[in-house]
């Protein structure tokens, strides 16, 4: 067991926790923030994506005790029913989800993707590594490819993200 303290959705949390516990299980099993999903538990599906210090990570690939002092934002921290984040609202409008299990990860990832593009971070499909990448459908699809949606809502998800980004899919 080990002690760790970090901030989750703006709230300071302290845990005495098994060193083997992933950040994902700390959120789901200890803090009962079950919006972050366990689809594979080894970094292959993206359902557990949350934001740590503003960047997206697979929370299943990270141990909770590694996050001393970190700021974690989960899907619950983005918005709630009745007060949805613009990305959450766009997913509803464009039906960018079906079973809903990958959805929190898709949304956390998409919020981070737009920040990454804004920050000028290139991707595999960026034509020029030194130029600022555009918010194109191709860039969005490439950057979202770590978030699997087996229901196949991709076409709608890209439209939701594009609308929030103010561009055309």
């Amino acid at each position: 067991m080990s002690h760790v303290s970090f901030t989750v959705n703006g709230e300071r949390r302290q845990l005495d926790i098994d060193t083997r516990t992933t950040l994902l299980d700390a959120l789901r099993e200890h803090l009962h923030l079950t919006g972050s999903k366990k689809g594979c538990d080894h970094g292959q599906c993206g359902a557990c994506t949350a934001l740590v210090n503003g960047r997206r990570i697979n929370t299943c690939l990270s141990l909770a005790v590694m996050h001393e002092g970190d700021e974690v934002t989960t899907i619950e921290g983005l918005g709630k029913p009745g007060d949805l984040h613009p990305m959450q609202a766009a997913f509803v409008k464009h039906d960018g989800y079906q079973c809903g299990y990958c959805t929190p990860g898709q949304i956390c990832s998409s919020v981070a993707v737009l920040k990454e593009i804004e920050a000028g971070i290139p991707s595999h499909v960026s034509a020029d590594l030194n130029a600022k990448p555009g918010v194109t459908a191709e860039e969005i699809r490439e950057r979202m490819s770590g978030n699997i949606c087996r229901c196949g809502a991709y076409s709608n998800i890209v439209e939701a993200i594009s609308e929030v980004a103010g561009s055309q899919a």
Partner: protein
Amino acid sequence: MKFDTPATTNPIDQLKVVGQPLDRVDGPLKTSGTAPYAYERHDVVANQAYGYVVGAAIAKGRITGMALDAARAAPGVITIVTAETAGKLDKGKRNAATLFGGPEVEHYHQAVALVVAESFEQARAAAQLVQVDYAKAEGAYDLAAAKQAGVEPSEGSPDQKVGDFEAAFAAAPVQFDRTYTTPDQSHAMMEPHASIAAWEGDKVTVWTSNQMVDWATTDLAQTLGLPKEQVRIVSPYIGGGFGGKLFLRADTLLAALGARAAKRPVKVALTRPMMANNTTHRPATIQRIRFGAGRDGKLTAIAHESWSGNLPGGEPEDAIQQSRLLYAGANRLTGNRLATLDLPEGNAMRAPGETPGLMALEIAMDEMAEQLGLDPIEFRVRNDTQVDPANPDRPFSQRQLIECLRQGAERFGWDKRATKPGSRREGRWLVGIGVAAGFRNSMSMPSGARVRLDAAGVVTVETDMTDIGTGSYTIIAQTAAEMMGVGMDKVVVRLGDSSFPVSAGSGGQWGANSSTAGVYAACVKLREAVAQKLGFNSADTAFADGQVRAGNRSAPLGQAAGEGGLVAEDTIEYGDLAKQYQQSTFAGHFVEVAVDAATGEVRVRRMLAVCAAGRILNPKSARSQVIGAMTMGVGGALMEELAVDKRHGFFVNHDLATYEVPVHADIPHQEVVFLEEADATSSPMKAKGVGELGLCGVGAAVANAIHNATGLRVREYPITLDKLLDRLPDAA
């Protein structure tokens, strides 16, 4: 309500709410992470312990010994359950293999132990300490090798012979004879199978993820030897199923057994790497297709034979069923052969039968059109039928296949298709377009619902129907709103609980039509009860805007309920309309691909589906069903294959890094068109289903587009680049 004559005008035809592209009502919950899935129910019962499943390390044989002492002594361990300690277990009638193995092992990763501990980490660590000794037995794992021993299956579709295929084929001026293969596929839904079980005396409640609540309840009761009344299944949110959660599976049984042994609630989830071999999969097929045709392009002889394998007691993959109905032709031969294989259990995956069947048949149609020198759409048009080819007195209730193809052709720019394959080039890309017919039968299932009306005019629907991402919550709310004349904000829908009336459940694309028809039936009764309560003549009572009106009398709906409320319950049941009419759904699938001339990389650039599937209850959620299915079709065409280890008998690529499914970068913008239809023979809703239709034919449309782009035919799915590479023009 017995539905035994075609529907006439009814309140659904108003289409004020039904038929509208409303946002799904579960959207805010799902997008905010507040919809509760099975493993997350911290709210339902306290003191949950963690179960971790140990899977068999052999495919076939016996357990000769289990050393559990080290695991029992590990920190946090509460109990370990094995088949030996679990007590006598029966088997649900829908399971071929038992869900808890030992001493016999029937397939790889069959559950053989459950370790229960205080924490997930402790249970997982202790599970690694369980030592199992096996005596391996010889097994059959290779379909191609086992094929010759295949027999006509005792269940499912028997062989069908119409006319004299052999003679007609021999006499045909144009003959075609090809064999195709489709691989084993995995549902790979995002939410692993998961359950929390809690006992209260001799009654067990399981919060789980299951498409068919009543099947799970029945089969868990049978397996545990309990009366059904002592089992409650709760499954309100399901993180994908695709057929993989149709049946009672090991997570549910083991959670119940673990909780009984631990004397406290236990939660169990399958790990991702266990899912492919522990649960069911879509079985591989080998399919031989023969056509005989005149030079006029009319088929005179059609044969479709399919071989698949399964464990003893399992059924074949019924890949031939669409070939009995899709095209005209006087002389026909169709049949399945089932071989015994000792791989994990094969069972339904989205559009079982038609998915692999059309992957083969619709390439064959493309090849035959080419052989005849006909356009592939024109060839299909010439062989259309409006009746069951084996029984011309039995018409299709509706069949707009030609319209799907023609309208799709116009929208997709079919006239710009290069008639000479391999002749359209854009830089390094070879570009082609392909078409395939989509076909899936529309089945109906009895479905019950209970509707409650309260004094505030709120209508609450309760049914054990499930929403696996399909939109059930929304279309059921739309149905109740239309029937009772209230807004969507006055309807509450509660699903997925075995204490509610038994519904159709989610499978076979019957869910939408059947479950809403059940809600319709219950609402008809509620309308009668309301009219009676208000003293209105029920025949001319109208329900609109939260008001009930008859003649010049009017009252708020809630007034009828009074303080005590009103409750009505009914089940939709069906007569023999499905025997009188062939009820099916149709699509034209169009795909454009670009194939890298040097590497064989295939990129899907455009996709269109034109669907004719009865009344569309919610065009937004129905479209999502179709695009999702089209995405799965791309997976089946290009990447999905469970690789069989033919020596040791298991699926090697049993996770999401190695069993590849489409990701964002693989899927372009997708277009879906629904033709105007309302099928009065299907139910009072006049709807059918689209969730499986959207997949049927897509794989072949991709394959045909690849052929149009490259001139190369690949008849073994998936069409990976290694199957193209040595024949590409730019390959070194």
